[in-house]
């Protein structure tokens, strides 16, 4: 039986105004339901551009994207109901409490009443934030803010969750907690598309990775398979450096 990809990207190309070089060059990729897919690459490789197009933040110059069978050019409103986004920035309102932030974002997903209240309580409990739920976000530690940031993206139980560097700048405990949680929700069927600069983290978490550089995929496969192809490179970070080079990127 053929598994239908939950995300189908075909010949995706993006030129930014004033740039002759494309940020993404004819990128084609299938992501399947239940995967934790790592989109890895140095700065300026095209990861954020790819995720931004998938989330509908801006249109591609060429190419097509289907998410859960829906085209982003025509069905973006419907797509937004099935995706969740956890941006790298702490996209929260600092003077609102965690409860107020989550209620607002839940409402924006169309959730309300008891359903929303119970879902928020459930998430706050799981993330260990129950006791501080009524405190303003600006009183939280970096790790606590990251956890609320994550909850805001998965309140509505999305089929596909996009995470842009979800563990940047937090303590080890919070990082391990977040990674464990992602694996747990993945087991319940959520497809995760994840970008990170932490290669070890990606190697342990992702079922499949794509290494992107200068707008193109230069390696694609399960971390174990990539390592098998180049056993002398011993880990994903070495493969990454081997493929993308050691030159500093802007």
């Amino acid at each position: 039986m053929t598994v239908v990809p939950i995300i189908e990207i075909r010949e995706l190309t993006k030129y930014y105004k004033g740039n002759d070089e494309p940020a993404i060059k004819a990128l084609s990729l299938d992501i399947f339901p239940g995967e934790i897919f790592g989109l890895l690459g140095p700065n300026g490789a095209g990861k954020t551009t790819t995720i931004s197009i998938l989330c509908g933040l801006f249109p591609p110059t060429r190419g097509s994207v289907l998410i859960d069978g829906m085209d982003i050019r025509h069905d973006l409103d419907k797509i937004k109901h099935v995706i969740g986004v956890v941006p790298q920035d702490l996209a929260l309102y600092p003077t609102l409490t965690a409860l107020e932030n989550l209620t607002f974002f839940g409402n924006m997903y169309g959730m309300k009443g008891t359903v929303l209240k119970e879902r928020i309580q459930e998430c706050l409990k799981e993330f260990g934030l129950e006791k501080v739920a009524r405190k303003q976000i600006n009183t939280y530690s970096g790790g606590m803010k990251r956890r609320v940031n994550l909850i805001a993206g998965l309140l509505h139980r999305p089929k596909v969750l996009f995470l842009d560097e979800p563990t940047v700048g937090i303590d080890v405990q919070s990082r391990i907690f977040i990674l464990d949680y992602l694996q747990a929700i993945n087991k319940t069927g959520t497809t995760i598309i994840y970008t990170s600069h932490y290669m070890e983290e990606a190697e342990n978490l992702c079922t499949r990775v794509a290494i992107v550089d200068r707008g193109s995929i230069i390696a694609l496969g399960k971390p174990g398979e990539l390592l098998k192809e180049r056993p002398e490179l011993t880990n994903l970070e070495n493969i990454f450096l081997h493929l993308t080079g050691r030159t500093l990127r802007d």
Partner: protein
Amino acid sequence: MFKFFSGFRKEARILLRDKAGLTILFIMPMVLIIIMSLLQEFGYSSVTRESSIKVLFLDKDQDTLGLKIGKGLRESNFFVVVDSLDGKPLTEAIIEEAVKKGDYLIGIVIPEKVTQTIRTNVKIQVTKTLAGFGLYNPILINSLPEQKADTVTVFFDPTVKKTFKNAIVSAVKEFNYKIETEMVFKTFNQEMALVFPNYQPPPQDYQDMVVFKELFPTYKEKEEIPNSAQHNVPSWAVFAMFFIIIPFTSSMMIEREEGSLLRLQCMPVSFMNLLLSKVFVYMIVCFVQTILMMITGLYLLPLFNAVPLELGHQIGALIVVTIVIALAALGFGLMVGTVATTHQQAASFGAVSIIIMAALGGLFVPMYLMSDAMKGVAGLSPLNWALTAYYTIFLRGGGLLEVFPSIYKLILFFAISLIITFTYRTLKNPLNK
């Protein structure tokens, strides 16, 4: 709709928790109104109340002209006449020095025997006129030497505006003309009595031939004289309402820079919905701000011995105008907040553009003082339309019908701002509506 209300709640909470921001939004305009009204109180109150511009007055004449000018100045309710400094009587040099130092704005010196000079010259002129009827020997009469006109000196501080200076000089000249005219009649009668012993001169009761009536045509039944509150409250209310684009665009830019907008753009909620909930909150802010400014005019200004605001009877029109002005201001804010790429850009462009539009719109310099070309430009400023609408209500007693031309332009401005905002956004991302 519940997404709109959720957005409204979120915006309201953020705003209410920003205590410093709220203080600036609500208290500063009230302070501004009190200060500006008190500063301008003199200019407007001169029509109705006593004021206190001190005028140094030296009357060397001590005759009709000097006495009448002195009396006129004292009775004008416009000036306080000062005729000595530090217990010393004034001299021309002292007056010149005091005005030069900037201690006094105006000094008037009436020269010695000026009335006598006028009297002599008038007598010569009358005699010459009667000689034309053959009543005197013209050769003898023409040989009478006329005295050279005396000079009344008026010292002005260089900061005194031209219009005010002209008013003072005109007032002094007016006294002189009146006295000259009275003297002509009096001398004529005396000379006629000398020539015709049976001539009975009419009683000397010189009165103005033309009486000037000052009216302020309004739609009100009862005429009211405009006061400083009537001018200041509306103009600063308009300024404050448009200045709200600073916190408004700031709120938009913070949302964009901190990433919340990006998250919201990935959610199934329309951009229009998000922005309108923000607009609604700030519209209430504008409304409360205006109410507070009206309260300042009504109840706080009298505490500072200033004339209170007369609210009039067109409350319905006042509410509609306030809402429409707020919409126009926020529409402009939406446009600036959407098109600007950084917080600084939005704040500086927003502030400068409002100040320019306020200056052009006649908020700082009245339109009647502008050149014809600038008057044409002033008519393009939304702040001018807003001010005109308020003046129509406060000063002319107009209602909805009378303010319609201004309302219509402000609504059009709001609609155009919205169209630009959404067109710009659609061009940037045709996918995300």
